[in-house]
């Protein structure tokens, strides 16, 4: 018996991760072989250096392969009503060619996932989210006869193109009028006989766009974008860099800041959108939607915890820190969900779950850090911030300032 069979047959094929349409380019550029996975796809943590890629997002432009992000088409006369029943925002207010950020909950008002919905037509929506949602969408469609739901994740190649020079690059790529596209707006462009969808969206808090084409045109889009971006420092960025940027922007991340309700074992370990401080996505004015009653009750009763932006003294990153009401650690009042040193604002920042009644009082973080393998402990005072840590003006300008 031999271990190897013929070379044409990969006996480990089932073990290997799927490759996105951009893989031929990504593998050339991933000098550090730093691969991770996302929804069964091979996916880069970084290509060269996380900090370098972070600065590409803040200073020039970076491409982030969002092919593994889940994409679902919801179409038909009942599509709007079905989504309106499922998600927390009022879908009747979402105009064609606009995108909105929202979430959806179980009956207990616990958040299943967050994502964006694109209204591509009166009866055509695209929902994007971090984790697969086929089963939940099917469940949510029960009772709505005229709606079809299609998972187009594998059929779509998508890039999040983020950074202060992105509009300039897209102009150079020939996307006429792109500078007039407002935040959360959608434009379409003919591309190689098909359609390229461009939305002014992203997960970095910076100026940025997301580009969507059929999977088979992915490489062509990549090459065209990279040719246009050559003189603008275009660079692939991995999850490490995007995770830094999103935290500065105060955006939440699954598996770090929240636990998806359907995958959570203990009911105290998942969260409601109110706890996650995205109450602005919950529209109580609209009729019944999933979790409405529970959320109303929670609002009435008061929250156990609320996600809070903290600016922490010193520079010791407060990862996994427990929060206390006093320096002596007598009263536990919360915990940090993500933390980092922010290179943009030179501050020690964190997102944390804090008991609301303590928000106006002193908040202390108990931080453990290492110096040459030896752990040290530090108590650091925290200041609550209302706004995103980093909010550059060009991110919201239309047309965006050149650079």
């Amino acid at each position, binding site marked *: 018996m031999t271990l190897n069979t013929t070379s044409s047959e990969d006996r480990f094929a089932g073990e290997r991760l799927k490759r996105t349409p951009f893989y031929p380019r990504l593998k050339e550029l991933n000098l*550090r072989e730093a691969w991770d996975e996302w929804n069964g796809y091979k996916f880069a943590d970084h290509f*060269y*250096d996380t*900090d*370098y890629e972070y*600065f590409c997002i*803040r*200073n*020039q432009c970076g491409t982030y392969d969002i092919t593994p992000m889940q994409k679902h088409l919801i179409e038909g006369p009942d599509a709007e009503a079905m989504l309106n029943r499922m998600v927390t925002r009022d879908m009747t207010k979402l105009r064609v060619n606009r995108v909105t950020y929202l979430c959806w909950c179980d009956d207990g008002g616990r958040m299943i996932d967050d994502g964006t919905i694109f209204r591509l037509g009166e009866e055509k929506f695209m929902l994007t989210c971090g984790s697969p949602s086929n089963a939940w969408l099917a469940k949510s469609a029960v009772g709505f006869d005229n709606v079809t739901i299609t998972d187009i994740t594998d059929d779509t190649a998508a890039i999040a193109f983020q950074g*202060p*020079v992105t509009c*300039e690059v897209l102009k150079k790529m020939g996307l006429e009028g792109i500078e007039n596209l407002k935040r959360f707006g959608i434009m379409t462009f003919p591309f190689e006989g098909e359609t390229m969808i461009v939305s002014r969206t992203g997960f970095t808090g910076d100026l940025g766009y997301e580009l969507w084409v059929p999977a088979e045109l992915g490489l062509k889009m990549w090459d065209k974008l990279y040719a246009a971006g050559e*003189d*603008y*420092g275009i*660079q692939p960025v991995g999850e490490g860099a995007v995770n830094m940027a999103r935290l500065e922007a105060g955006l939440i991340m699954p598996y770090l800041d929240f636990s998806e309700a359907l995958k959570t074992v203990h009911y105290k370990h998942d969260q409601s959108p109110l706890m996650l401080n995205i109450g602005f996505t919950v529209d109580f004015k609209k009729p019944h939607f999933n979790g409405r009653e529970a959320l109303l009750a929670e609002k009435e009763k008061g929250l156990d915890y609320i996600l809070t932006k903290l600016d922490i003294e*010193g*520079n010791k990153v407060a990862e996994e820190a427990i929060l206390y009401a006093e320096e002596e650690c007598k009263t536990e009042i919360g915990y940090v969900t993500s933390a980092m*040193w922010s*290179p*943009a*604002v*030179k*501050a020690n920042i964190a997102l944390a779950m804090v008991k609301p009644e303590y928000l106006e009082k002193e908040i202390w973080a108990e931080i453990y*850090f290492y*110096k040459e393998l030896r752990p040290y402990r530090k108590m650091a005072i925290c200041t609550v911030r209302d706004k995103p840590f*980093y909010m550059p003006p060009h991110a919201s300008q239309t047309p965006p300032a050149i*650079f």
Partner: protein
Amino acid sequence: MKTYDAVIIGAGHNGLTNAAYLAKAGLDVVIVEKNDYIGGAAVSRQLENGYWYSSCSYVCSMMRQVIHRDLNLTKHGLMLVPYLGTAAFGENGQTLMAYTAEGPAYNELKRFSAHDADAMYRLLADLDRYSTLIRKTLLRTPPDPGSFKPRDIKELMFLAKTFWEMGEAEIYEYIRFFTMSAAEFLDDYFENDFIKATMATPGIIGTALGVDSPGSAYILLHHVMGDVDGTIGAWGLARGGMGAISNALAGALQEHGGEIRTNAGVDQVLVKNGKAAGVVLENGDEIHAKLVVSNLDAKRTFTKIVDRDDLPPGIFERAKNFKIRGSSGKVNIALDGLPKFNGVPDNRYINRGGQAFIGSMEKLERAYDDWKRGKWSSDPFIESVIPSAWDPTVAPPGKHWMSNFIQYCPPQLADGPWTPEKRDAFGQTVIDKIERHSPGFKDLIVHMEVRTPYEIENEVGLTEGNIFQGELTIDQLLFNRPFPGYAQYRMPVKNMYMCGSSTHPGGGVSSACGANAAREILMDLKKPNTVPEDDCHDTQYNIF
């Protein structure tokens, strides 16, 4: 006539920092600047359409992040971006790449010497240890060792304790270190001449010392102790050029109600009854203020704008003999495209960082010999960076500008005064050398700004064009800076202070001098201190 609480002379980055902190503490301040633009040596200037030169200082690693954070400089438009990867050029086509990741960087050193590749780790640990000590002193006022004030004794104790924590053996090493040459220091680590030369160059930048001169080891440390977000030895570019730092500080100053006056060179400090009372501008206008802060260098302050009769005996002479020798030139070049260098692969990383035209240890010392003889180096050391490869705001897309810092270039030439022709000949020497490593380089040149110490002195106001406002040798450091007895930012004239790089901790775009001076002023005014304590990162290795 209005009397300000304070007038600050010179809108360089330390003057702006000082003014911003005084304004933040509620003082009514005005900062006066002789040029029609602010920034001093931290400035971005558009001399050719679409190209923004950082005319003087060009990279940044000492900027106190706690000040950046405290004054909210990001909100005022400042972003510091680290740049990576330097290609060093030696003799006979040798190149040494400073790769970003540890593994490749180690492999690269090993091409030259397996011994030195290992020794690099020890050097970095030692530099890290030495710099940790100095970094702790940057945002502190040096103690007066002759004083018995509780505060000075406390500060001396702090220094002694910090020093003692290094361990006994290291204390001896450290003391040796301050008087050694860069060459002697590096001999203990490396056998390969090119590696040694590459590591020695920070020891001569901006200083009138050679790699073999005692004292150059400390200069080396001064240049590598900075960090960007905790990566020690890393260098940052300010997005928009170094002027972005000054502009952000000016934004903070104005946010707190401070006033900025340009085209307002100071002719003289007004002294009444032995106390500073304001300034007389070159146009004859007087500005009255309760205190005067000079951001000019010590020599200029006490030999040019303070009347000798207003000074206690001996100060004028000390200022006259203050060691502030010009030794550097700067050539800023606008380019039609990105230059390619011999032996450097054309990829988006290594070809986008810095370049160091080095030669060998002997070449570096010979370059210094030329300076001693009153000539610019015929084969100079050039440290370059192409900021536009990283910063989309400083050149049109696809175009670039290259910052070249040159060691050595004398303030006075042996064969008579500087002339535009001699300046251009100096510039030619520089581009001839670059062309040798980058064939076709000259064809890319769109515009050049050549700056000898003569231009730096006359445009910026740094005596002899010395970039540090005074040599960083041990006789002029810590409690000896600028003069013994006057290291706590208070000057021999009552109500007069200094806040420039002539004071502790010396040169570099750190904002530390200006902030320290503000703390002392607020203490004298019995106002609560608003200057934050330093917040040094625990550092991490970074090759080069």
